[in-house]
């Protein structure tokens, strides 16, 4: 079987569109996930009364169910249950943010808890207030430790966005499916789709590597 480059060439504009949508969903997803995860991670690390139980339930539910089911739930079930209707794009971004948020919660909690208690003691012994200790010592150190696992999570989130083809969002994977149906050339289309994903995850990995190098992990 020969590889028809012209199929790839003709599909390119649509794939670029799909890749753009994938990038947008991913950026919103990891941005939202960072916000949720940082907040929830701090809540669990410091065992904020009551709230840390809510976070525990949230993390358990997200980690305990497949992301496809979460996407289906948000897109199809939420309108029935609570009269909230979201566009495919909004549902996908929200789903990814909630999903990444749960995992980032654990990353942040782990990073904060891994900071040597002795450093906190040293800060307090100097006469710093607890918020000052968090801001000047625990925070910067914990932040550095989140970077490698965050890079991992970002790449997982980017790839997970392919699942949103189940709710008809025209991201990269969904374009792949459509284009295959139109052209009947599965080999060319899925190879090209894979290369697109590879490029995007590679860029993400490079960015994380750069941040990591600029900031020595301690």
């Amino acid at each position, binding site marked *: 079987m020969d590889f028809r480059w012209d199929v790839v060439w003709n599909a390119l504009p649509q794939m670029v569109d799909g890749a753009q949508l994938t990038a947008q969903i991913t950026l919103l997803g990891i941005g939202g996930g960072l916000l949720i995860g940082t907040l929830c991670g701090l809540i669990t690390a410091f065992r904020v009364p009551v709230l840390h139980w809510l976070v525990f339930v949230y993390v358990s539910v997200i980690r305990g169910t497949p992301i496809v089911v979460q996407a289906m739930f948000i897109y199809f079930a939420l309108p029935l249950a609570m009269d909230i209707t979201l566009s495919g794009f909004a549902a996908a971004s929200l789903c990814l943010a909630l999903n990444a948020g749960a995992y980032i919660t654990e990353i942040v909690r782990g990073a904060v808890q891994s900071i040597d208690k002795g450093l906190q003691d040293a800060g307090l012994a100097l006469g*710093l207030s607890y918020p000052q200790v968090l801001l000047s010592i625990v925070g910067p150190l914990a932040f550095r430790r989140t970077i490698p696992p965050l890079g991992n999570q970002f790449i997982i989130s980017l790839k997970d966005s392919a699942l949103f083809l189940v709710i008809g969002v025209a991201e990269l994977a969904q374009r792949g499916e459509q284009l295959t149906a139109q052209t009947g050339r599965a080999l060319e289309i899925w190879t090209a789709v894979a290369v697109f994903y590879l490029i995007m995850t590679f860029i993400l990995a490079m960015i994380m590597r750069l941040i990591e190098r600029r900031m020595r992990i301690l």
Partner: protein
Amino acid sequence: MSRLIACRNLSKRFGTTEVLRDINLEVHPGEVVVIVGPSGSGKSTLLRCLNVLEPISDGELEVGGKRLGDRGTRKRDIRRETGMVFQQFNLFPHMTARDNVMLGPRKVRGQSRREAGELADRLLNRVGLADRSHHYPSELSGGQQQRVAIARALAVNPRVMLFDEPTSALDPELRGEVLQVMQGLAADGMTMLIVTHEMRFAADVASRLIFMDEGRILHDGNPKTLFQDPPSDRFRDFLRHVQS
């Protein structure tokens, strides 16, 4: 108001274990108090209670005229009167030696970058590390790290220095440089409480020796007298163990 530290019937419990029982202690300006005792006797916990890193379970604590529990006295106010040096140094790994020393003056005393920087340079010079000020802790030897830690503790201008086994994590050949800095501080009249196993240092530098056992102060007196004529079998046993 001649005493810097006063505790009355200070007790500390972790759950049901009593770590400190009815500690009565007064420390006056210029005293160099060395605290010795078997592990688990409560020496370190006592130091940590004196600057409220551990909340006390019972009794009264007064440091530099500030009484714990008094209206308007925060834990922080007591901690500002004390400087602490830890067994594991606990330098902030993301800051250079200079930044480690500057943090206290800047955040606690509200000094400007320049003031704090000048103070840090002076203190690093005093501990013999002027040429290491831009190194990170990971680039320093254990002895150097501990000397930076001493400079950091001095930077907030404490009235009492607390040393929690400052040489226990160091190789024997690195202990001397730290002990020398401490000896210099003592000679300058700094009030110090030192938990250590360095009996030579205790005999040479301490103005007062405290022997703790099972959470109590068993002996409290002149180091020379206590070393020469141990008043109890418990202390005699302890000395035999550490000296062998």
